[in-house]
């Protein structure tokens, strides 16, 4: 019997349509796989096996009666930051202990409407703040390729679950690279949609002007399919955009002959892992061989992106996380008055990185510092957007590394937050500019760790980057390598 846990999202849909397996078969195969490997990987924070099997059986019944759609009964894992009615939503934090979501996030509503089965919740850096998944209150996730290495973050559980075949596909969220970087570290495909493409309703907010929900998958085609399911305007998120969602993924098979792909010199920097640079340059040559024209472009303000990001993101986080005050949900530590209750609750409930970022964000917004930090960062954000506007005048998409290194060892960067932040240099720019980005596996380092190629496209041109990614992927076999036997 074939192992259904190895299926892709599209492959599972095909199998269900052919009658070769039921949704309940797929869900049980995933639970068997989880039982076999999750002690090592630690990707899942929560499972309700009985409910998942009931949901799968309901999908099977619907399908048997001729109802449902193409993806009815396909199981998926969701990052523990997305609200699913009647499930916990820990956000990787102790402060949400005991919380049960009273409603579905819009992306969850849309998946359920399509018949997709939620098979479990996956681990993450606390409130999506981190690049290594070491900031979870529930312990670190491990990289399926080498379990003494990090899976990346903050959607580390999503990427590790997909890489270890504990999930057919997963949803993550990306504020500064939190989908693309773990996808790269784990050898998966990760898509950060353009800002406004996907409703954020029901995503616990980290930095509202940067956050987007997107898929982590085994193939580019799967990422396109999932984006097609979750994208679209939503009256519950006033920043979601009225953009055409029909036809997402329709360009996958068109090839890249004659396309102009930009290579920004600022994304090949001193100090980056030479293996990473070599694999990305190899991938660029593959694209050239497939008929693309490679052009040099410049994004001159790139070196300011990390500083800009950590001012804007922490400022927004300091406001967003004010809601965790021990009054309406989660844990409370009692105090004699509200101020001491808030202080004690937040002291006990938040981990170090969350505290650091809230304090930094509070500082850059505080009286006397607002202009020097926050306002200046917003202006530099404009310059970074302009860099991309200018670059996209001479190319259709941009090729870069996802991160300067491959996955590193657990504990290697935990004492030095600034060093960890600098690893986000190639991903934060897309969030600041609101554009879309895709991470596609492009080989391995000499230490056998995956490397990712980042493909950046103009806002709402997901079809362009999916087309480039798919064409590259189909010309290589990196995406077929599996992390664990």
């Amino acid at each position, binding site marked *: 019997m074939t192992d259904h846990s190895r299926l892709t999202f599209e492959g599972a849909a095909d199998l269900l349509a052919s009658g070769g397996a039921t949704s309940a078969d797929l869900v049980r195969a995933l639970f068997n796989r989880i039982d076999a490997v999750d002690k090592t990987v630690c990707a899942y924070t929560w499972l309700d096996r009985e409910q998942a099997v009931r949901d799968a059986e309901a999908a099977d019944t619907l399908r048997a009666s001729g109802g449902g759609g193409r993806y009815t009964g396909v199981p998926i894992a969701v990052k523990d930051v997305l609200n699913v009615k009647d499930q916990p939503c820990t956000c990787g934090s102790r402060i949400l202990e005991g*919380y*049960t979501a*009273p409603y579905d996030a819009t992306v969850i509503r849309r998946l359920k409407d399509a018949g997709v089965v939620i098979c479990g919740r996956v681990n993450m850096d606390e409130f999506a703040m981190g690049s290594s998944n070491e900031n979870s209150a529930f312990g670190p996730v491990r990289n399926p390729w080498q379990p003494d290495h990090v899976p990346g973050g903050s959607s580390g559980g999503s990427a590790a679950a997909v890489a270890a075949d504990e999930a057919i596909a997963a949803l993550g969220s990306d504020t500064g690279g939190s989908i693309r970087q773990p996808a790269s570290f784990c050898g998966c495909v990760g898509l950060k949609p353009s*800002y*406004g493409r996907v409703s954020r309703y029901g995503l616990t907010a980290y930095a509202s*002007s940067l956050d987007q929900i997107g898929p982590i998958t085994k193939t580019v085609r799967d990422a396109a399919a999932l984006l097609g399911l979750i994208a679209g305007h939503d*009256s519950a998120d*006033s*920043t979601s955009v009225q953009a055409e969602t029909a036809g997402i993924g329709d360009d996958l098979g068109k090839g890249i002959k004659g396309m102009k792909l930009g290579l920004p010199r600022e994304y090949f920097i001193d100090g980056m892992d030479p293996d990473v640079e070599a694999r990305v340059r190899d991938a660029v040559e593959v694209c050239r061989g497939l008929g693309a024209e490679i052009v040099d472009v410049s994004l001159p303000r790139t070196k*300011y992106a990390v*500083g*800009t990001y*950590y*001012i804007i993101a922490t400022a927004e986080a*300091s406001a967003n996380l*004010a809601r965790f*005050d021990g*009054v*309406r*949900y*989660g*844990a*409370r530590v*009692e*105090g*004699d*008055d*509200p101020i*001491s*209750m808030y*202080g004690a609750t*937040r*002291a006990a409930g938040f981990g170090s990185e969350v*505290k*650091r970022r*809230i*304090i*930094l964000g*509070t*500082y850059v917004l*505080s009286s006397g510092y607002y202009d020097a*930090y926050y*306002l*200046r*960062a*917003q*202006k*530099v*954000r*404009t*310059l970074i*957007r302009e860099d991309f506007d200018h670059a996209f005048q001479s190319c259709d998409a941009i090729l870069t590394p996802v991160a300067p290194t491959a996955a590193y060892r657990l504990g290697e960067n935990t004492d030095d*937050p*600034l060093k960890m*932040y600098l690893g986000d240099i190639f991903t934060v720019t897309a*969030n*600041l500019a*609101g*554009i879309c980005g895709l991470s596609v596996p492009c080989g391995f380092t000499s230490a056998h760790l995956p490397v990712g190629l980042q493909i950046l496209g103009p*806002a709402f041109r997901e079809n362009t980057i999916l087309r480039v990614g798919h064409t590259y992927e189909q010309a290589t076999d990196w995406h077929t390598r599996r992390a664990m036997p």
Partner: protein
Amino acid sequence: MDVEYIAHLARIRLTDEEKERFAGQLGQILAYVEELGELDVEGVEPTAHAVPVHNVFREDVARPGLDRDTVLGNAPATRSDQFLVPRIIE
């Protein structure tokens, strides 16, 4: 940065060890972001949102909200269908 004062504004009580550790780490981060000062931003409009955002209106019609008992079920303390907090006024 006066970490203790900022932490008070953020309503996070810190231990002495945290104050010391965060002061060093945040000092490093602030020193790093100083490089934004190199750029001339005279006349540059700030970006609050990458996609232009305008007011979004809907008809002023009442719609059902979340179920009250479900919402209160998540609260650490409630009384008489309301959230219960420590005494504010003596």
